[in-house]
């Protein structure tokens, strides 16, 4: 019956989602509530200016230090800059849960003996994890709003929401890449390693490209999804719809590729 696996995945993933969401909410609250006023923010920015540019790039801070000293700039660096790396873990684990975990545990044999096309397992589970990811992102947004209420900083709520929603395409892309890898590679350990390598390599491609603007490394950085994440840009100019649509198109391609690969191969331990 259609939607049963979707419902089951939502139910079974809810606990982990709530834990992640509360963690993100607290982090969002803490990251903004600790700044009591604009002076404190300026002191923070001054401290950052003493750091080597390469190190700042690793932390996701661009060249625009003036923006960094604004409340919106601080949130883009202090929250959105880090949070994507943390949520990459959730995205990889969720991606593995689409097929790999049950295949590794031997449960997939039971599922595949039921009147259920293989592609539907991928589609329904991916849709469920998309919803759960959205819940986490929105809880993080709630934490930011609450934290800003406690501090003297002022950031437009609409912009905060855009910044939060900007996390989602990247999370889905990591998840979709993991689903695709797990659909091609039968071994869960190998799939985990490749998915982790995908995230780490993408991150450093973007960092190296950012440090060497105008070079070939900067061109290669465009291959990294972090390049399109652009946590600073979203807080300055709002959601870059072209980036979002492009990333979602890659997500759709990866999910379709996963469905194709999983349909073709032998399943099981």
């Amino acid at each position, binding site marked *: 019956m259609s939607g049963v696996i979707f419902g*089951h995945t939502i139910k*079974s993933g809810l606990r982990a989602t709530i834990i992640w969401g509360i963690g993100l909410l607290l982090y969002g609250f803490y990251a903004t509530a600790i700044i009591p006023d604009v002076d404190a923010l300026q002191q923070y920015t001054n401290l950052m200016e003493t750091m080597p540019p390469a190190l700042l790039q690793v932390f996701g801070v661009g060249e625009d230090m003036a923006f960094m000293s604004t409340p919106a700039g601080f949130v883009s660096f202090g929250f959105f800059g880090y949070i994507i790396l943390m949520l990459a873990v959730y995205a990889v684990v969720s991606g593995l849960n689409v097929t790999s975990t049950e295949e590794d545990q031997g449960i997939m*044999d*039971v599922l595949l003996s*039921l*009147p259920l096309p293989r592609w539907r397992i991928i589609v329904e589970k991916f849709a469920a994890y998309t919803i759960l990811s959205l819940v986490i992102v929105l809880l993080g947004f709630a934490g930011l709003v609450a934290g800003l209420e406690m501090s003297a900083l002022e950031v437009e709520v609409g912009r905060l929401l855009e910044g939060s929603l900007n996390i989602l395409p990247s999370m889905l892309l990591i998840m979709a890449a993991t689903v695709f890898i797990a659909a091609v590679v039968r071994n869960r350990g190998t799939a985990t390693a490749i998915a982790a390598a995908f995230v780490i390599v993408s991150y450093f491609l973007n960092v190296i490209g950012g440090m060497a603007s105008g070079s070939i490394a900067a061109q290669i950085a465009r291959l990294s999804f972090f390049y399109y994440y652009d946590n600073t840009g979203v807080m300055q100019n709002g959601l870059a719809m072209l980036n979002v649509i492009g990333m979602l198109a890659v997500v759709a391609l990866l999910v379709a590729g996963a469905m194709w690969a999983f349909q073709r191969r032998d399943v*099981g331990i």
Partner: protein
Amino acid sequence: MTSVIKTENLTKVYKMRGKEVRALDSLNLDVQQGEIFGYLGPNGAGKTTTIRLLLDIIRPTTGRATVLDMDAQSSSVELHHHLGFLPGELNLWRGMTGEEVIEYIGRIRGKLDKAYVRRLTEQLELDTRLRVKTYSSGNKRKLGLVLALMNRPQLLILDEPTGGLDPLMQQIFNHLMREVRDEGRTVFLSSHVLSEVQAICDRVGILRAGQLKAVERVDTLMKAKFRWVTLRFHEAVPMAVVENVPGVSEVAVHSDSLRFQLSGDFDPLLRAVNGYYVADIRVEDPSLEEIFLAFYGNGQTVQQASGLKEQVAS
């Protein structure tokens, strides 16, 4: 009779560390409607591979399988509406209760006959309120049987179904299987336990090293059945004492013991050893390979059959 399972040169070759392993070799099998078919063979013979091919969990290298007149691969979704399956190693969602698993599987199937499920759980004495992770292997097996039976499938495919069940539950299992057969439905079960197959199967097929060696009716096969008997005496006894007893063959002497094959009744044997002090009697069922070779003969002795068995086991 209608064929429920029909395979044509079904072959599965795996690549392991660059080497090709032929897990199933040109299997031609025909299972009829309304029978309990025992699929027998030692571990690694290809029983589970066959089952996974029939369920479209893995794909054949060559050949094809037709189940309930549907292609096992291209019509798998439609076909699975009419199948019940119990895997050899049943793994389920550990955090869910038995009830939740039944409900989940039932919803995927699109129907759940709660009254029938209740009857099954009562018959099998299964407490479905417990979480799967707390179940013993026997209880997990029972839950697996409920899941396989609950949609009243036209074909039940069971991989080593009674492992972990106590003797009383095995009797209930046998009863359930006969009930399925009496309703005109079909059971295909794999096993390496002769007594299990003997008790309920109508026909058996024996698989060895990926090849189907024989298919025979169980009652026909059992006519060729013999036992290994070992008599231990207080002192050494000559071979001649039992050698000419009707039904005795393959006699061997081991210090104070005689070991031989016995077909038919015990009475002539007991009369023959009357007067000697018998310290111990041991009776063993022959292996399936030994029965098959005794049945098919082909000029092979039981010793050769035993050798073959060891060869298969290794």
